[in-house]
């Protein structure tokens, strides 16, 4: 099949600047491209050519950053090319524009966060887009369930496909490939003979690393030779000091144990920090879709302490590969769970081994790709209008019959005939309605209306 994968307008693929969605796409491509003719449409980056074919995959890179500009480029590209299936990543607002220029292609959608929320997409457009896509793939049950709550009719189209990790790159610190790196890293940062707790993520209020720092006095009273490593910059590749970063730094400075802040670490080198650590802690306070760091920590054989927020706990089996903090607002709850692990060395060891085992058996990229292939196969098998051919014929026949006049099969009393007729008619009307509703042009009309309205608004703005 000829397949187009449409990335977001924010970051380039391959993930030279990081990004969960970009990593997901790049991780699955080697396997997907064995079965299909794949084009990846994304945004340009100075370090990448605007067009290239690499390992059989075509990459087309256009102007991005702002969705409106990117959307125009995407539409232009789709209009000039033919695809059997178009897989859109995390941008439901691209569905209708793409549909308007690709009436015959199947469309599938991957959802990585809350882009279906009311403030992110107008419900009229959201409904139209949801009807238009054959399947929706989400990175966690949490993400899928939020969409279900907002748009219950779409429930059966949603399926969770957990992300994956490169288990050849993310390896435990005692792996022959990593031992040297682990030791060198520890030596360089004064972490020799320390039990190293690792946090990796954006330094923001939502990600909550301050709670972990505030748990350190309690922990250091119980355990000797602890150290905390904080890997992360403010926002992907940019290092700038916000009030929050200043706050966490001010707290870190006063801790009884060393807190090593690494600043920005290139996505290509992040595995070295996982191999250097002994325990991984995710401190997210917000309803997080499901942070990639969990897979990476598992692959690196680290026990995990995470929070019961969003989808994070979905990959933790309590006391098997980690523990879940129910109230992450309270630093002592982190201290409690971390203590539980650190005070039982054999449990700690078992959790790490189990995590690695999960990573290798459940979270390899090949498994992710296989599940995407299944979804694509399903999408192709669904008839275009979303209504089975047989039912469609039935509706058409009934519409025809209705035109010819009253039917004669009801021989009962007049009343019954009338009621039955009424019911039949209602049923028929309903089916015809459904049929009409799924007609492509209708939805394109809705989209066009929304667009015209926007243009009018813009025009008003200009004048």
């Amino acid at each position: 099949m000829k397949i187009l994968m449409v990335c977001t307008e924010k970051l380039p693929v391959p993930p030279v600047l990081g990004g969960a969605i970009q990593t997901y796409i790049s991780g699955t491509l080697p396997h997907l491209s064995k079965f299909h003719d794949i084009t990846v449409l994304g945004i340009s980056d100075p370090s990448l050519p605007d067009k290239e074919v690499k390992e059989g995959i075509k990459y087309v890179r256009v102007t991005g950053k702002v969705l409106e500009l990117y959307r125009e480029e995407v539409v232009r590209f789709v209009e000039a090319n033919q695809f059997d299936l178009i897989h859109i990543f995390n941008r439901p607002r691209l569905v209708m524009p793409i549909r308007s220029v690709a009436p015959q292609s199947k469309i599938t959608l991957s959802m990585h966060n809350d882009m279906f929320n009311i403030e992110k997409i107008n419900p009229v457009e959201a409904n139209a887009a949801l009807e238009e896509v054959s399947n929706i793939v989400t990175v966690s049950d949490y993400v899928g369930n939020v969409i279900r709550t907002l748009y219950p009719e779409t429930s059966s189209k949603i399926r969770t496909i957990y992300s994956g990790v490169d288990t050849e790159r993310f390896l435990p610190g005692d792996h022959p490939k990593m031992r040297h790196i682990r030791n060198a890293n520890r030596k360089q940062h004064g972490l020799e003979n320390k039990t190293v707790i690792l946090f990796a993520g954006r330094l923001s209020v939502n990600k909550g690393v301050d709670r972990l720092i505030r748990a350190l006095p309690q922990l250091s009273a119980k355990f000797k030779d602890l150290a905390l490593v904080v890997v992360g910059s403010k926002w992907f590749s940019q290092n700038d000091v916000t009030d929050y970063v200043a706050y966490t730094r001010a707290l870190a400075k006063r801790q009884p144990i060393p807190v090593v802040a690494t600043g920005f670490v290139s996505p290509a080198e992040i595995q070295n920090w996982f191999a250097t650590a002994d325990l991984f802690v995710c401190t997210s306070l917000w309803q997080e879709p499901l942070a990639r760091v969990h897979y990476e920590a598992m692959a690196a054989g680290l026990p995990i302490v995470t929070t019961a927020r969003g989808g994070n706990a979905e990959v933790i089996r309590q006391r098997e590969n980690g523990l879940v903090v129910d109230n992450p607002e309270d630093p002592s709850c982190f201290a409690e769970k971390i203590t539980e692990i650190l005070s039982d060395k054999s449990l700690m060891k078992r959790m790490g081994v189990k995590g690695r085992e999960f990573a290798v058996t459940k979270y390899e990229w090949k498994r992710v790709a296989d599940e995407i292939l299944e979804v694509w196969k399903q999408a192709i098998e669904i008839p275009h209008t979303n209504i089975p051919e047989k039912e469609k014929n039935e509706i058409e026949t009934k519409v025809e019959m209705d035109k010819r006049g009253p039917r004669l099969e009801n021989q009962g009393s007049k009343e019954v005939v009338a009621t039955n007729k009424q019911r039949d008619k209602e049923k028929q009307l309903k089916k015809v309605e459904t049929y009409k509703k799924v007609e492509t042009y209708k939805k394109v009309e809705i989209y066009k209306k929304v667009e015209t309205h926007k243009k009018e608004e813009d025009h008003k703005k200009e004048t």
Partner: protein
Amino acid sequence: MDNFAIVPWDVNELTHEFFIPDYINTLAVEVLKHYSFQVRSMQVVTTKPDKGGAIWKLETDSGPKSLKLLHRRPTRSMFSLRAQKYLVEVQRARVPAIVKTKSGEEYIEAGGKLWFVAEWIEPLAPVTKDLAGAKQLCYALGEFHELSKGYIPPRQAEVASRLTKWPKSYGKMVRKMDWFRNIAIAYKEMPASQSILSVVDRFQDQARKSLVDLNQSSYLSLVEKGNTSWGLVHQDYGWSNGQMGPNGMWIIDLDGVAYDLPIRDLRKLISGTMADLYHWDVTWVREMIRAYHEASPLTPELYELLMIDFSLPNEFYKNIKEVVYEPELFLNEVTTQLIQTIVDTDQSKWPTLNEIQNDWRK
């Protein structure tokens, strides 16, 4: 224009007061080539080294002008520049007019930032530091708010709006009180830490109550009226950005304007003035609100919101938030005294607010 991206610069005891890096001075000269006037002299009047912004005063063959390097994102600056143009050209507000380039543009993009030239209004004199002056400021602010209604930004600009963000910013204040407390605990041997710890609970409770009051007020229904019908807040209005000049009060430095409920500016002006007086004075507050009301009528709903905004621990928050940056320097004796002053001033705030609470009864 091919050039370096403008970034914030360092200042230290070796750099003079208005130091500007050479590459920015070079860019300034390049920018001025796009204008038809002849520059006789240019002089730096303000810098924002931590943000990367600056203002020059120009003497030219067509009179004095200002050249500004705007530190904000270009798309954000486009919002405020078009607003300035709207106020001058459409509303005839007493706001400095933007001088166009030879090719008729309102700004030049250089070093990844926007630069523009505006008329330098002369003479400008601050109003007297008394109640009469305060009332002039308030009246001028009301006029400004009225005239800013109906502004629509250009398509390529970011829409700068704080209208829907009140609950979020109240919540942020509540949360940051935790930060102040945690830092004071972590640096408990510093002189000001005990002062912070002795008052932070009280101020945090006040902020929490303000947030509850906000959520129970008519805020949401006011928000529904939308950006353009409310118009713009200046965000940095005070005794220096509102001055007496030709034909009346002029309002300058519009670079931070954003859509919002206009009383945000009035609240800042009044609470800031009370801080300068070291106590809350019922007469001043009443008269200032009345002066504003004459130019821009306040509804009971807006008045209620003004009261709620007063109830926040604004001064404590504004003065202490810096603590996260260098607590070992900030938490000194001076800060201890500052906190004492804030607490003392705060004592007269509540009787004042109670007294005027029902002035605009529904």
